[in-house]
């Protein structure tokens, strides 16, 4: 199907909105837009970071998900207590494939679930005593942990427990940092506020901690950088890191995929912060820029075009030796990339993709698809803000769809009309669209594949897209309601 014109896309949005009651229609209309590259400011065409409508199927998470699941969770040598009832921690346990090196349960704890398992009596009498006991128990059972973070779940805020006081006391007894994070799920409209709260907790409780410099001996070099906002999904941070290291830079810290507490503590001494996921980590980068004078730079390691652009931009912060090595790195990987493109581009070219993910991917992966000759015809953020859409408008083609916090219904209707060849979204959307006979890739967990960052990641990305799109099964999938009636009747008779 050829691409929709601007008028057709606008009509499509109107049509989809028609089923809503008037008030909901007015609200949702602000979140759906047709991209217009001439617009400088996204707020003129799209509203974002607003409360989801009650009654619609939203795909958002909560502040706890943003803090425990995204920012704090992957820090491997700390123990993150899900403070509150058991479910929040258990059902999100090891859900994000943050790879790490270490022995789980000995010196790394990412995939384990630590919870205070609140019962009725804890709600009635408060859970502070329980938390203090947990801190002690952890110290006894897991002596190699480097610190504890207390991730509050909703009830903690509701009953007014003083986790800060308990944490301070606990930190003094075990002589390790204990970080209280006020990321109760009811805060904010989505996981985005959880990222902000988590960033502020790092600022206040990690950077400002007394005596951290006496333990941590750090020899700075002029080429120190940190990778910020890469959660090492399927090894993403590793495939990014090797490129930077080949350029002659020293990657001091990974935030926070495969990261450690001492890496966090060393970050204020680096020369440049490299920011991948802008949405979840810009807060701490801004803080470091102001307080420690460390510039930050947004980069994009999806697809060779963007990688080259980003590598050159990173090298421009350093001296000529780095810039020379940067060109060597680009030249070194070019034959590999050319081979990948040569192999997969003919199989993928002209295919149209719709995306709906969170964080940085709705705009970052566009380059990756374009390198393979594919086209992104619709994109949207679960929890993006105005500044995300500002950055997206330029990346997207004219008259393509933009949808913020899209509802299950809207997304399905858009897909039915736009008829993309591939959809990239999360697990909750996957089976709906697969049953509709549309190839689907999970773009949150890379569909249990990955890494997708860096040159090595691009090769895997191209293979995965080809594997999904050109899978012969799609032609054989007819949803039950579209099967010819006669066949159904025949089956009934046979039964």
């Amino acid at each position: 199907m050829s691409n929709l014109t601007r008028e057709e896309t606008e009509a499509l949005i109107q049509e989809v909105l028609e089923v809503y009651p008037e008030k909901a229609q007015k609200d949702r209309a602000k979140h759906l837009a047709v991209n217009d590259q001439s617009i400088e400011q996204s707020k003129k065409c799209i509203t974002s970071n607003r409360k989801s409508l009650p009654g619609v199927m939203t795909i958002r998470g909560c502040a706890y998900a943003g803090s425990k699941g995204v920012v704090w969770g992957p820090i491997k040598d700390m123990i993150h207590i899900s403070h509150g009832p058991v479910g929040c921690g258990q059902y999100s346990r090891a859900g994000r494939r943050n790879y790490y090196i270490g022995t789980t349960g000995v010196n790394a704890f990412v995939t384990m679930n630590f919870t205070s398992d609140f019962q009725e009596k804890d709600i009635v009498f408060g859970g502070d005593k329980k938390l203090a006991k947990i801190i002690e128990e952890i110290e006894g059972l897991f002596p190699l942990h480097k610190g504890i973070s207390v991730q509050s779940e909703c009830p903690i805020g509701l009953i007014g427990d003083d986790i800060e006081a308990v944490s301070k006391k606990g930190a003094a007894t075990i002589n390790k940092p204990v970080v209280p994070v006020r990321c109760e799920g009811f805060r904010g409209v989505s996981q985005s506020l959880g990222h902000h709260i988590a960033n502020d907790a790092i600022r206040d409780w990690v950077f400002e901690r007394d005596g951290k410099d006496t333990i941590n001996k750090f020899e700075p070099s002029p080429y120190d950088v940190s990778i910020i906002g890469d959660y090492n999904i399927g090894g993403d941070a590793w495939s990014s890191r090797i490129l930077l290291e080949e350029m002659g830079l020293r990657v001091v810290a990974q935030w926070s995929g495969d990261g450690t507490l001492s890496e966090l503590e060393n970050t204020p001494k680096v020369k440049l912060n490299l920011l991948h996921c802008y949405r979840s980590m810009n807060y701490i980068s801004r803080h470091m820029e102001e307080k420690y004078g460390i510039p930050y730079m947004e980069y994009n390691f999806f697809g060779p075009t963007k990688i080259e652009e980003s590598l050159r931009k990173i090298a421009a912060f350093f001296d000529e030796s780095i810039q020379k090595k940067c060109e060597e790195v680009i030249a070194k990987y070019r034959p590999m990339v050319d081979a990948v493109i040569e192999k997969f581009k003919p199989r993928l070219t002209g295919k149209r993709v719709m995306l709906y993910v969170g964080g940085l991917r709705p705009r970052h992966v566009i380059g990756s698809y374009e390198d393979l000759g594919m086209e992104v015809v619709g994109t949207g953020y679960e929890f993006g803000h105005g500044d995300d859409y500002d950055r997206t408008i330029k990346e997207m083609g004219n008259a393509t769809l933009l949808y913020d916090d899209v509802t299950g219904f809207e997304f399905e209707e858009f897909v039915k009309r736009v008829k993309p060849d591939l959809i990239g979204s999360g697990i909750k959307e996957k089976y709906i669209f697969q049953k509709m006979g549309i190839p689907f890739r999970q773009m949150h967990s890379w569909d249990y594949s990955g890494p997708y960052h860096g040159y090595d990641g691009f090769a895997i990305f191209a293979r995965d897209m080809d594997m999904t799109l050109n899978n012969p099964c799609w032609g054989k999938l007819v949803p039950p309601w579209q099967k010819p009636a006669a066949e159904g009747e025949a089956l009934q008779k046979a039964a």
Partner: protein
Amino acid sequence: MANIMIRRGDKGEYVFYLPKRDLEDTVTSMEFDTPEKWGGEIKLNNGGSYYIEPQVAPARLPFSVRAKRLDAAE
């Protein structure tokens, strides 16, 4: 009164950031912009305007400062 942060953008312009609301925008005009006197009324690209008490220009940007909202967009 709100805490805001002023930083330099890629093109050397001032960029306004309001952490509480995650609002980032370029500053189109600043009333006083000399080393001795800096601040006053600032106008944003989105149509909003804020007032910073005029002061000696900060030695280094980004710089966090209290600002009064005169006219917010939206």
